[in-house]
């Protein structure tokens, strides 16, 4: 594929694309209207035609892998199919063309969507209430910890400043805790790949604010001691937070609230199929138990006895707000459409088929790669390239890159940190058996190449638009924007 020049390197001085109407009000001198403020002298934006723009970004799109292109088994990211009808719904002018500050009487349908999606999320969580205000999973974590902090402060317990986090956790967990002013203490995993309950019991105490737990954990295993864990933490006066990144495995089977969790976040862009968009927009909705409901951010959507929806700002114990308005409404709307489409049986089917697919991959890869926890897993399986590294000097990164030559996006690699040479595979429920076979056969072929032609694997990828990037040079010769000549 030929490299695509930057849009700044295309076009010609004076070329125009979009046209706007001529000014139909009396024109006055801008320097007079903006007296005392300096007007812009130089503005170096592209000067291209509409066709230049269309071709440029279409060509760029061809250099991008996506779910629409093929299987995307990126562990922890739940790259499932993003239904097209949800895109249609999000583009209805009655949703897309609403201003958030319109009178409530003119946005009753939008408020109803917010109210209902929040009720449905609370139901899926098994908790009292939910908000879609956070814009990402990490944002939901942060808001949850803000709520935990306010809860302890409201009870006169300012000394609860430690958050316990398993060492298998996502990096956002400790980062969010630190951002919220907490000290982080790591809890090890035991031989089963689960949270070491004895270590947790020793760590939990009067300084414990909360435990952050991902369930199923990042090894794809259900934390079967979860009720006991929650009891231990609650007895110590702490709260238990569920990182809902892996909620896809649990839909309709079990609910975090029923396990004893006090607060959780969802990734609507994972579990509820809203498009990841190359890294965003997301929605990190959170759900809370009744004890934490007063601390939810404002405004809260309420439904009066007359059936009218409104936005309530009068919440004296609220933590405040984490978004300019009410969160990523159009993302929540897509998730709403998805849940309405699936219904209770469909949601449960999501979890069951996600589990079936992950176990099928695990069974097919047995013998080809090390599988540290080779027993029934939930929605994802973590394999290890330790054998390939020791025998042929081929690393998990090389295997990931080689998979690209087979036209498949690699799994998450080097995570969780507790598994050496980890390759974390999450097929998701929307992949067919045939698609999984293509993935497994590619990995089987690469496993053979590791012993027969290891150099081919180590030099991969060979067929993509570019090969491995010089990351060191990227930092050393930092180039983060185009500059016009002479600037």
């Amino acid at each position: 594929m030929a490299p695509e020049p930057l849009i700044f390197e295309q076009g010609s001085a004076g070329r125009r694309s979009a046209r706007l109407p001529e000014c139909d009000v009396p024109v006055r001198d801008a320097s007079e209207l903006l007296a005392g403020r300096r007007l812009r002298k130089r503005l170096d934006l592209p000067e291209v035609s509409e066709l230049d723009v269309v071709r440029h970004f279409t060509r760029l799109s061809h250099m991008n892998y996506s779910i629409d292109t093929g299987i995307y088994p990126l562990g922890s990211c739940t790259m499932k199919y993003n239904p097209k009808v949800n895109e249609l719904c999000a583009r209805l002018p009655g949703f897309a063309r609403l201003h958030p500050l319109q009178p409530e009487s003119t946005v009753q349908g939008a408020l109803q969507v917010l109210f209902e999606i929040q009720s449905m999320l609370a139901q899926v969580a098994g908790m009292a209430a939910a908000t879609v205000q956070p814009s990402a999973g990490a944002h939901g974590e942060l808001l949850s910890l803000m709520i935990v902090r306010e809860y302890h402060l409201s009870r006169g317990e300012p000394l609860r400043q430690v958050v316990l986090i398993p060492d298998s956790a996502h990096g956002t967990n400790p980062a969010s805790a630190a951002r919220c002013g907490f000290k982080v203490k790591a809890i090890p995993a035991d031989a089963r790949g689960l949270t070491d309950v004895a270590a947790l019991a020793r760590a939990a105490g009067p300084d414990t604010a909360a435990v952050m737990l991902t369930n199923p954990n990042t090894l794809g295993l259900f934390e079967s001691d979860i009720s006991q864990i929650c009891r231990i933490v609650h007895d110590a006066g702490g709260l238990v937070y569920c990182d809902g990144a892996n909620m896809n495995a649990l839909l309709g089977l079990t609910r975090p609230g029923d396990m004893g969790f006090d607060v959780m976040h969802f990734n609507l862009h994972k579990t509820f199929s809203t498009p990841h968009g190359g890294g965003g927009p997301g929605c990190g909705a959170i759900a809370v138990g009744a004890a934490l409901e007063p601390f939810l951010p404002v405004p809260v959507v309420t439904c009066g006895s007359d059936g009218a929806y409104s936005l309530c700002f009068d919440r004296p114990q609220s933590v405040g707000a984490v978004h300019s308005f009410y969160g990523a409404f159009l993302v929540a709307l897509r998730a709403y459409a998805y849940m309405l489409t699936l219904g209770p049986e469909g949601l449960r089917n999501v979890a069951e088929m996600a589990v079936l697919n992950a176990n099928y991959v695990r069974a097919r890869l047995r013998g080809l790669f090390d599988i540290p926890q080779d027993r029934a897993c939930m929605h994802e399986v973590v394999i290890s390239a330790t054998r390939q590294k020791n025998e042929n000097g081929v690393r998990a990164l090389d295997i990931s890159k080689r998979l690209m030559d087979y036209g498949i996006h690699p799994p998450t690699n080097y995570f969780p940190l507790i598994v050496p040479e980890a390759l974390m595979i999450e097929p998701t429920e929307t992949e067919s058996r045939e698609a999984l076979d293509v993935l497994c056969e590619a990995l089987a072929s690469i496993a053979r190449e590791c012993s027969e032609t290891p150099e081919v694997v180590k030099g991969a990828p060979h067929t993509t638009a570019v090969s491995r990037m010089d990351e060191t040079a990227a930092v050393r010769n930092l180039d983060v924007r185009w500059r016009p000549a002479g600037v």
Partner: protein
Amino acid sequence: MSYTPHTAADIQAMLAVIGAESVEQLIADIPSQVRLAGPLAVPPAMSEPELVRKLRELASSNLDVDSTLCFLGAGLYDHFTPAVVDALTSRGEFATAYTPYQPEMSQGVLQAIYEYQSLVGLLTDMPLANASMYDAATGLAEACLMACEIAGRSVVAVSDAVHPRYRLVLETYLRTSDCTLVTVPSQGGLTDPDAVRLAAEAGAACLAFQSPSFFGVVEDSESLIAATKAAGLVSVVAVDPVSLGLLEPPGTFGADIVVGEGQGLGVPMGFGGPLLGFFACRLEHQRRFPGRIVGATVDKEGRRGYTMTLRTREQDIRREKATSNICTNQALMALAATVHLCALGREGLRQVSDLCLQKSHYAADQLCLNARCTPAFDAPFFKEFSIRCPAPPERINEALASQGMIGGYPLGRDYPALGDCMLVCVTETKTRADIDRFVDATRQIVETM
């Protein structure tokens, strides 16, 4: 309706490969006492036509801005978006991709983000922009926390002419970071010229202000930034990118951190989200910079390519020592802004800015001439203006609503002293006839009150 492709035969064949009797056997790790006894209490499944009908009904119960005349701004703006923006951002290759961790398969989004960073840099005159934040409010909060790190102090000073909702988010973030917020007053819609002295006396790390301010007034950014720097404070400026088609950007005046809401650049208002926070800083602050950054580099064969860079600041590597917990970005919104700015181009953005300036001034003049309104402030404005009304703004709005119009934002909600003032927004989407209709309706309403 379901999106799972499994037939009964598939399931049996797969279970045979696994060596399990049933799917139930695979989830046996979930203890029975936490298993859900019945189905989830959510609405029953719908077919696609049923879903579309329901969503259309819900959508049509809202009054969208195309079915009315809406003069609301206050942080989100109705700007014209060329059709090419949605056509390109709808492409599945962009919309259904993940964060570009694997550059070899993600050059499309990486190059688009590099172009986005370049456009933000060009607009704001800043050397380093990240691949986007959630929105302006969280961007401003991250900027102020970063300023505290830079200055080694824990007090943030913010002008009360900054959007009230941004200040609420800022306050929420600061409270959990053991930092304190000092709000410095505004005078005549502008940040008090004494603000820098007040901030410095409070021991602030930074002074944060917004231009145009929440009141629509264009601040004297040049003087404010110069005074902030002279006092040894970090300058944090929130800007409307559309105004930068006409106005000299804060980077030119030496701002340390520039943030803002990018929604006006091709992102639907969407009842408030998803939005696009942009964020730029001076190079010397790069190690404290939050969020993703894309850099140009070369591959093994020396070909130009793009990759995420300066990664050692980030949470997946640094965990609790990261500069921020942010791991996603708003890539698809950033792509929309990139396509939008390319489609508008140099002349197009200038024209949009100028149309906003001209039409908002026409509207303000007409309201004063014909509807007994007076300017709330004697200061230059860009596309929004605060106007004092001869009747309570809430009542004017109610009367406008009965004529199918949505008036401005009543400022008394956030500024009790401005109880008789309204913040009116007029962008290039309004024709002279629209404005005249609004002015005429307002005139009739205030005459009968």
